[in-house]
């Protein structure tokens, strides 16, 4: 039994969740607190990954970070290795897959904070940075934590986009979701059963945690 796909999936999901948290909370904060040109566009783009077919998403990513794109070349120039068809590409695909969830929940969380609390903090001389860390984030922590849990589950399950830009290289980029497909295709029933069971168990646990977080928030 090869456990590599499972570990890779967990690692990729963890990385994607961390990046989504940082980026997602920042984007949500911008959408709630700042007015800037292109805000509507950012809002729409942030939702797109939820609506687009994963393969379409993967294709865009291929265009964006492939070996012929300027990002791909810059990366290759800096590190000497291509970005696509590595575990890093899988993290990027999973991040894109998961981040809309985080942005939406973090935004909803930040929007329900009592404005007066933030105003009070401002009138007490706190900087925006301090207000974010000491007031806004703690007050929105539950919906954000719940969203992070779901984002973890979602990034673990990405198939289409990951396949497009990270490929299916056993022992290098083959995540659990892809390994299940391969196992079924090649008639390796036992492998498929185990992976499906483990993934299901982890996901059920995560959804349970996320629901509890959401409920206590309400």
């Amino acid at each position, binding site marked *: 039994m090869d456990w590599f796909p499972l570990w890779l999936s967990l690692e990729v999901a963890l990385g994607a969740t961390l990046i989504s948290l940082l980026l997602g909370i920042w984007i949500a904060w911008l959408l709630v607190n700042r007015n800037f040109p292109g805000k509507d566009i950012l809002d729409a783009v942030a939702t797109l990954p939820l609506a687009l077919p994963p393969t379409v998403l993967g294709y865009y990513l291929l265009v964006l970070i492939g070996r012929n794109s300027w990002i791909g070349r810059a990366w290759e120039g800096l590190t000497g290795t291509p970005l696509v068809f590595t575990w890093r590409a899988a993290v990027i695909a999973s991040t894109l897959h998961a981040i809309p969830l985080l942005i939406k929940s973090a935004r909803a969380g930040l929007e329900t904070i*009592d404005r*007066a*609390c933030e*105003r*009070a*903090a*401002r*009138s*007490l*001389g*706190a*900087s925006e940075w*301090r207000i974010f860390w*000491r*007031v806004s984030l*703690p*007050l929105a922590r539950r919906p954000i934590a719940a969203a992070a849990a779901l984002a973890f589950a979602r990034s673990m399950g990405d198939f289409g986009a990951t396949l497009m830009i990270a490929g299916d290289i056993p022992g290098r980029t083959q995540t659990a979701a892809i390994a299940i497909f391969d196992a079924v295709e090649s008639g390796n029933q036992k492998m498929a059963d185990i992976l499906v069971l483990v993934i299901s168990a982890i996901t059920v646990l995560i959804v349970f945690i996320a629901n509890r977080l959401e409920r206590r928030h309400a």
Partner: protein
Amino acid sequence: MIRVAIAKRFAPGPESAAFELDVSFDANSGVNVLYGASGSGKTLTLDAIAGFVAPDSGRILLDERILFDGEARVNLPPRDRSCGYVFQNYALFPHMTLRQNLAFAAHRLPRLERRRRVAESLERFGLAELAGRYPREVSGGQKQRCSIARALIAQPRILLLDEPGQGLDSSLRESLRDAVRDIARSSKTPMMLVTHDLEECLSLADSVLIYDNGRIVRRGAPLDLVRNPGTAATARLLGGFNVFDAEVLALDPGRHTSRVRILGHELVGPHLPACFKGDRVALASRPEEMRIVAQPGENRLRVNAPVFTVERPQSIRADFGGNLVVDVPRDAWRDRNEELWVEIPPESLRLLAR
């Protein structure tokens, strides 16, 4: 010392009419009460001083520091304004204990100094025992004291209070008044307090600014305003006045009197400077300045039984309809079926500008 001269316009929205704030005043230490109906621009003024709302034009100066200047495009962010703000709902940080709430406000002080100040402040506002509790675990009055303590610990140059008595029962309102008076006595921090509660206004104010529809219609010491409201709008806002439409029938400047027609009766009126015979004027008289009597006589109006009465601790307020309200001392009140007259002493009638 604060100087404010600001204007802000709001275009009509789907659910709101157009509104324009245009006020100008300066205020010194002591309690300055902004009094007026809801939606007259009181809280908007506080928000402009604190920097939460930018006026369209004008200037705000606090202790010779420019907080806002429309022409010079100065608009300091709220955190640089040194304005303490006590919010209507207190706005305590729900995830911090009372002590942490205060410490948050004192963050600019060095650690030891901060600890000492927080402890002192908790003691002073009677919160020492509750310092480790969260806002949801304390009463409304305690939340309110904590919110005032938090605003003061940042050492503001002015303290802004937005309807702090709102939603508290009368004993808590009383303790709020004590707290505000105490601050006024012990510190030179000027206070601006928004309220639409007349009693709160009169008992706390050193100076009252009366708001009506985005403007300050009158300003003065509370007693002066009650004695002489000046305009019919002010009299109505202060409440507790009978405002009569009167017709000037005759003037007798020599004896400082006049004759006026009020509610269809000819009465002796006060000296009415700058009025002519035939003018229609507004005269105001307080309910406690009138009397109920059982015989006709000079300056007495025949009335029917009161439409309704309100029991008060020392008196009974009788409303005879048609804008005629009289306060009768309890011992003078007899619930009679006899004929009643209301006496309006000439000196109780004040001339109001329209």
